[in-house]
């Protein structure tokens, strides 16, 4: 039979193909097998490793991650069930924050049945139920304490009267399993719901059969041992073909601003500069969360608000004064005074704020330790609110004040602060702490190690910290009782404003010897507090940070951790905000508003989103905040002179949950697969060898 063969036109063929492809694409839905097995949950807050000259701290997972059967812990008996009864080791414990204690983790480690821990912080969790939770030790930064080596009569003070009585030293412990924090409610609900469905032991406490809900935790850290080892390896790896960041020094930038411009062409008189300092960093055990509301933001915002107020009240008397004010924000103070020790080191070797530039007329003056008249440090000032007013304390250093001249200067400063507070009508009571008590942990200590300077540290605590959550994830806006929605009724921003007002009034008198109450901008205080403590995506931050990558603005509290490298978005933002507050607007467009030299007295900053484009000219600049230990050739890492903290490198952290079948089922699946492959091979071989019989094909004619 002759088949009629009609050859279709090319156009018809094209439409046919289109039809087939569309049908194919709509019917077939491609998805990776991995996505069908695993569900990713929030895994960006891992506990990671840090190192100092002698130790490693923190957590790491194995190279391929750690997995285990999830067990949600609600009370002590659930933990006991895992250790005594649980047959499906290893387990991943999902615990509420109450169980995040050194004891629980130690027990988990010793049991050998735990391969990871997930801390679930639910939206409605109330931190007040927690006991001691501060991650720091009883004596923060005690390794680099001013009194440690030289002044034995004061060095023992903290052991008897701990500055941080709620300290657990949790931050400084090392664990051999990964620990993650999860605060995303959807992720928590996932874990809890599937746990109920599959894993929860029955009413008699008998374990459930397979399949069980499991979790894989990935947070492999590259560095190990201590800073000496991992820095050596980082340097070696840097010189080789493949670069591995085993670890990097904790570092960033300090920010400084002079009230009156300091030009190197005008000689800076001795003891003419009053340093007003605060720290801008806090820390916690986990990545991506370090709110530091009291430990950092309280002092930082007070300083910003005071600087703004003083700048607005800058009159001819201030401008012609021989005195000057230097506002300084230190970075990395949580990790053994990185920022302040660097500044002091630079000052002592005559390279602050930079090495003197020959033949450059427009450059900022060199400042060294003898130029400093007073040092006023705003430490934790957040929890000084009382029913109707505020109470703060003025700490002084007993050692430097044994010098009668320093002592009389300090006395004058304290009296001035107290009278200014009442002049400003700020309802802040400033109480002097017993002069025999040494200073609490403060940046001022770094300066006093090298030079006797009169000064004070302003805090909300007389003895032990009022801050129950120092250096932990709960030092947030709730800890300082800030109510963002309260508007005018919020008392916290008023408290901060009052402190700033008392400070600004003091500074005005230091500059001019005249008394004049300085009022501050309370709205500014409220805005800044809201932005730092609740939402970094606020309007002000977005305007000043228009050059920062959009992923930075995530509607969460600011992350105050110093981190590594010098491109920390928050530090940049703080620098620009300070420039906006103390700088003046100049009439330059975006092209001409550019910094020509980082040495110049004035620095320029342009923002397109403020009033349709504004150029700020200010004295604000950043200086390196990296421990001198990393700059000194052949530094002895064990010497304990400077901070040696580094942070491990890592690829990426993540959490996944999945259902794991029993071992029998897994083995069966693999064997079934192998058998079916062999079977199909056999069938194909058989069919191939007998193709002529099966398909009735004629034997191909032999080639000629």
């Amino acid at each position, binding site marked *: 039979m002759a088949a009629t063969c009609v050859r279709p036109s090319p156009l018809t063929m094209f439409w046919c193909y289109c039809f087939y492809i569309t049908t194919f694409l709509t019917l077939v839905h491609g998805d990776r097998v991995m996505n069908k097995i695993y569900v990713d949950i929030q895994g960006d807050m891992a506990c990671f490793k840090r190192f100092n000259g002698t130790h490693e701290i923190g957590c790491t997972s194995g190279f391929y991650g750690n997995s285990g059967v999830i067990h949600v812990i609600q009370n002590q008996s659930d933990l006991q069930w895992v250790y005594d009864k649980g047959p499906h080791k290893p387990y991943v414990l999902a615990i509420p924050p109450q169980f995040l204690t050194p004891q629980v983790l130690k027990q988990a480690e010793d049991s050998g049945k735990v391969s990871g821990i997930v801390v679930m912080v639910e939206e409605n969790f109330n931190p007040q139920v927690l006991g001691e939770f501060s991650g720091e030790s009883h004596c923060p930064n005690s390794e680099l304490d001013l009194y440690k080596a030289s002044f034995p009569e004061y060095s023992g003070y903290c052991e008897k009267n701990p500055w941080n009585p709620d300290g657990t030293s949790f931050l400084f412990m090392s664990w051999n399993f990964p620990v993650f924090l999860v605060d995303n409610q959807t992720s928590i609900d996932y874990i809890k719901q599937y746990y109920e469905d599959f894993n929860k032991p029955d009413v008699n406490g008998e374990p459930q059969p397979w399949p069980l809900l499991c979790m894989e935790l990935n947070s*492999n*850290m*590259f560095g190990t041992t201590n800073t000496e080892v991992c820095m*050596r*390896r980082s340097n070696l790896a840097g010189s080789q073909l493949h670069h591995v960041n085993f670890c990097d020094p904790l570092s960033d930038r300090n920010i400084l601003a002079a009230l009156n411009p300091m030009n190197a062409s005008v000689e800076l008189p001795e003891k003419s500069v009053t340093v007003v300092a605060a720290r801008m960093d806090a820390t916690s055990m986990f990545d991506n969360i370090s709110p530091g509301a009291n430990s950092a933001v309280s002092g930082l915002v007070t300083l910003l608000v005071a600087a703004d107020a003083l700048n607005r009240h800058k009159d001819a008397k201030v401008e012609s004064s021989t005195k000057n004010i230097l506002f300084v924000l230190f970075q990395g103070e949580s990790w053994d005074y990185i920022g302040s020790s660097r500044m002091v080191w630079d000052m002592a070797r005559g390279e602050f704020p930079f090495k003197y530039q020959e033949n450059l007329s427009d450059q900022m003056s060199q400042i060294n330790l003898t130029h400093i008249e007073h040092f006023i440090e705003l430490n934790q000032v957040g929890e000084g609110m009382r029913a109707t007013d505020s109470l703060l304390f003025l700490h002084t250093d007993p050692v430097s004040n044994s010098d009668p001249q320093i002592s009389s200067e300090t006395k004058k400063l304290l009296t001035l602060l107290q009278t200014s507070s009442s002049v400003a009508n700020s309802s802040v009571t400033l109480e002097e702490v017993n002069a025999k008590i040494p200073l609490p942990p403060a940046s001022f200590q770094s300066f006093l190690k090298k030079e006797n300077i009169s000064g004070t540290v302003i805090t909300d605590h007389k003895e032990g910290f009022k801050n129950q959550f120092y250096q932990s994830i709960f030092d947030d806006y709730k800890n300082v009782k800030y109510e963002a929605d309260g508007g005018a009724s919020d008392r916290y921003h008023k408290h901060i404003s009052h402190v700033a007002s008392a400070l600004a009034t003091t500074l005005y008198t230091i500059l001019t010897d005249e008394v004049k109450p300085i009022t501050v901008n309370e709205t500014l205080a409220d805005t800044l507090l809201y932005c730092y403590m609740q939402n970094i995506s606020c309007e002000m931050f977005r305007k000043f940070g228009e050059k920062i990558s959009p992923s930075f603005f995530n509607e969460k509290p600011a992350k105050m951790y110093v981190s590594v490298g010098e491109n920390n978005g928050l530090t940049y933002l703080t620098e620009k905000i300070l420039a906006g507050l103390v700088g003046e607007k100049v009439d330059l467009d975006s092209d001409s508003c550019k910094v020509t030299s980082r040495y110049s007295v004035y620095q320029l900053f342009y923002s397109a989103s403020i009033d349709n484009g504004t150029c700020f000219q200010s004295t604000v600049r950043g200086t390196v905040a990296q421990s001198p230990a990393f700059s000194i050739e052949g530094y002895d890492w064990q010497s304990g002179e400077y901070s040696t903290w580094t942070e491990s490198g890592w690829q990426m952290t993540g959490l996944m949950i999945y259902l794991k079948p029993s071992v029998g089922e897994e083995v069966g699946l693999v064997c079934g697969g192998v058998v079916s492959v062999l079977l199909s091979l056999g069938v194909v071989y058989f069919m191939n060898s007998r193709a002529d019989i099966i398909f009735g094909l004629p034997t191909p004619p032999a080639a000629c």
Partner: protein
Amino acid sequence: MAGFALLPFMWAVNFVWFLHEAFKAPPYPEQKQIRTYVIVSGVGASLWLIGVIVWVCVFQECRSEWGATADYLSFVIPKGVP
């Protein structure tokens, strides 16, 4: 070239290549000499192999203990182990 760093490897190749010639091939006058060389090459190559294996084991065991020295000797430093 091969004689410099890879001499023991050359011995191993030599051993395998001439094995047949030295022991299996019908006898001829130079065979005895070849046989000696093949045996010596074989022994040398195995000694070298044993030496390498021992060194690798010792190095892997003691790498973290030797500290800086071991790091300078390493080409690839593994991540996340002491």
